[in-house]
Structure formats: structure tokens, C-alpha cells
């Protein structure tokens, strides 16, 4: 089980787990719950250069469509094909099995992201 307090968060409900120069990115349980049952996920190609705030993909539920915004700048090094094949993973395991992409980041890429408490405060906004 991931310790959620070790993650960084964006105001657009993405989470980031940094390990050296690699950041793993996903969406939060709050976002997955708000969408409802997720039935389609689109992710970028490996090698895509992302600037913070870029749209890097989409998640669709039966009810709505949401764009996914890059919480950090970097180059996509890996995508999670399992979640493309089975988008329901996003509802079942948003912080573990349903990570979306891994990105090679530069120093300071995480600056300005929220900690767990600040993010929770937003979701209660």
C-alpha cells in the first residue's frame, strides 16, 4: 500500500511519486470517484516531451470526459498499458495498479506541487 503522504499532488487531481529522476504519475481516488466508472483511457507515446500543464491524455467515464494534465515537465519514458487495456483499474486501484505514465524529470520539477494535506484541503473546498 502506497503511503499517500509521500506523494505530491496537483490541483488538477494528479499524483506524482518521485524516485530520483523518474516521476510516476496517476490520478487520485477523488478524481476517479468523481468521474464514475472509467471506460476509456488515452495515454501519450513514449518519448513525448511534456511541459507542466500539457494535456497528456484523457479519461472517459460513462458520464463524462476529463483531460489529464501533466503535473510536471519531462519526457515520457513508460506508459501503463494495463490501464489502457482495463480502464476500470483507475477506479479499483488509482494509486497503485493504475499509475498512468513515468516521466524523466529534471531537478526542481516537483516545485510548486501540493503535499497530501494541502491537496485534501482542495478536495474539501
Amino acid at each position, binding site marked *: 500500500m502506497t503511503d499517500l503522504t509521500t506523494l505530491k499532488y496537483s490541483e*488538477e*487531481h*494528479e499524483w506524482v511519486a518521485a524516485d530520483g529522476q523518474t516521476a510516476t504519475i496517476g*490520478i487520485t481516488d477523488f*478524481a476517479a*470517484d*468523481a468521474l*464514475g*466508472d472509467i*471506460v*476509456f483511457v*488515452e495515454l501519450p507515446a513514449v518519448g513525448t516531451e511534456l511541459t507542466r500543464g500539457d494535456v497528456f491524455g*484523457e*479519461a*472517459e*467515464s*460513462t*458520464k*463524462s*470526459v*476529463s*483531460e*489529464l*494534465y501533466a503535473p510536471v515537465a519531462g519526457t515520457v519514458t513508460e506508459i501503463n498499458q494495463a490501464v489502457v487495456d482495463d*480502464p476500470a483499474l483507475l*477506479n479499483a486501484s488509482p494509486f497503485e495498479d493504475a499509475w498512468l505514465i513515468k516521466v524523466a524529470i529534471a531537478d526542481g520539477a516537483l516545485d510548486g506541487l501540493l503535499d497530501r494535506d494541502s491537496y485534501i484541503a482542495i478536495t474539501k473546498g
Partner: protein
Amino acid sequence: MTELHDASGSSPRYTPLRARHEALGASFTDFGGWQMPVRYTSDLAEHHAVREAAGVFDISHMAEFTVRGADAAAYLDHALAGRLSAMTIGKAKYSLLLAEDGGIIDDVIVYRLQDDDFLIISNAGNRDAVREALSARTEGLTVTVDDVSDDYALIAVQGPAAEQILTEVAGIDEVSVPWAEQKYYSWASAAYNGKPLLLARTGYTGEDGFELLVASADAEALWDAVLTAGESRGLVPAGLAARDTLRLEAGMPLYGHELSREIKPAQAGLGRVVVADKERFVGKDAVTPAEGARVLVGLTAEGRRAGRAGYAVVDADGLVIGEITSGALSPTLGHPIAMAFVDPSSTEEGTAVFLDVRGTRIPATVTALPFYRRKK
């Protein structure tokens, strides 16, 4: 992540079942100014439960009007597009309330309670417009129209197990017509704990089912009783998300999507609802769509990416030939479905078109509605 499509509203209203929904852990959404349960657990699970067993929906936000008086039947023939005077007591009929210019103010279901006593159920978001139009059309007739929406709750029990479950709900008795003999689009009277209960065999899911009209004060007890009776038969509480995908699969129009003041009945495939040979009714002179007006069709696509309301329908050259009004990945069929208004030249079944899904062109095929039809 940002919601691209979401409803919002102000000064929300709640139905008498609010506390029940909250206790069940429902997520709420704005619908026509009401805070309604959008889902309890999973849209898809709720959808499948209705197709395979049963679901119970709170639809108390919908509006109810009584139409009473010696001229009630003649009044409805004038005020609505159908011939309601021909309906026998005990029956229900789908009809349209048209504006003078032939546009659709609302779609309604009319129940004939007595010779001179009718009930109209309309959409929540159109309650004020319906009340105004109905009231404005009574002139010179012995008829009284009352908005009784606040007095009643409406609970829909839908799905193949609905009838069996309702026969087992504690507290429902004095049913005027044996359950198995109640026909689709008819109603029966009953008592719930000794108080009047109207059982209408109507719905908005494409399944067999009932809509139960009960005094607001009795709504919670009836809701609980339905859940208790249905639990062992697979009934679950279901929200608006499931209701929307269910009605879309069944090819049923949703006001504000397939129906509006700018759409004439025949464009939406509802020409049969309009009895054009009636001597006169509001909207008659303007009910024919303009030459070349777009027509509602069904569209199916492959893959999992759905076209959504507002997306363009284009031809092979990229020319816009229509617009989607509702769309989703069909939970029952497993592929994308949509309803769209398209140019008359592209309405034939089998016509190949494309959906412009946020810049990506997805091939689709014009298909007869409904997408899903229950086995009899």
C-alpha cells in the same frame, strides 16, 4: 484533471428521499436545479442490475399536474399534440407540449384517471414552462390545472424482476388490477399503508417496470420497503448516470438533448405523437419541419471511445453534416452509441459517417433506434 462536461446550478433542491441517498453513500449531481443521486456505487453495476434484475430510482424531481373538469379531455386535445380524449380510463400516453411555433416545450406522460380527471408527469427542468403553458391554454373551458409536484414523490422500479419484487413489497395492497394484467402504459390504483398509491407501468430504461406515485410523507417508508423486498432479487438503488445510459440504449429522447424549443416533433422521430388531423391544437400551424431540417438518427461505432453531446458528425470529406445530442459507451452492447441530428441526406440506415471526437475522426454507422430492445 478538469471536468470538460459537468452540470452546475444554484440554490439546489432536494427530494424527500435526500437522507436515504446520503445514508446509501450516493454522489449527487445537479439536474434541472435539483441535487439528485448520480450514482450510489458504480454506474455500470447499477446499469447492469436494471437490465438483469432491477433498480430503484428516485425521480421525485419530476413535475406532476392534475387536469380536472368537464372539458378536461377536450382541453388536452387542444393543449397537447396527441388525441388524449381517445384514451380510455386506466391508460397512459406519451405526448408533447408544443409552442405556437411548433417547438417542443416538453415531453410528458398523460394518465387518464377518470373521464374528467387526468394526471400529467413532466420533466423537472421544465416545470415552470409547462405550468405556464398549461395554464395559458384553459381559456373558455371548464377545466382546472394544478401543479401538485410538491405533494408527491415518484419512485421508479425498473427491470425484469420489477413486477415480482413489487408483489412482495410490504404495505402495498388493494391493487386494482392484478399485477400480471397491468399492461405497459397503463396504471392501477393501490394503497400503501392505507394511503393512496398510483402504480404506473411506465419507465425510462427500456425495461419492464413501474413508477410509483406516493405522497411525499410516505416516500421514505416506501423506498425502504422496495429495497427490502428487492434485495434478495438483485435490486439496487440506481442513479441518474445509469438512468441516462439505460434510456440512451433504449433510444429514448432526453429534453435539452434530443428535444428542445428549436426542434419540431418530426425531426426527433416523434411525428407519430402528433395527431395532425385534429381540428386544432397549439402548434398545429407550424408543426411541419422546414425543408432540409436535420433529423434524429442513431449512430454506432467500434472501439471504446464515445462521441458526446455537442460533437460534430462529419462526412468523408470532413464536412459537418450533423451534431451528437447524446452519446456513451453502451454498457450493455460494449461499443459506442449516440443519437445525433444529421442532414436528411445522411439518415439512411447503414450510411457511413465520422464522429469528430476532439479532433480524432472515428468511423460510425447510421443505425435504427433503439439500440437495445428487451426480450418480451
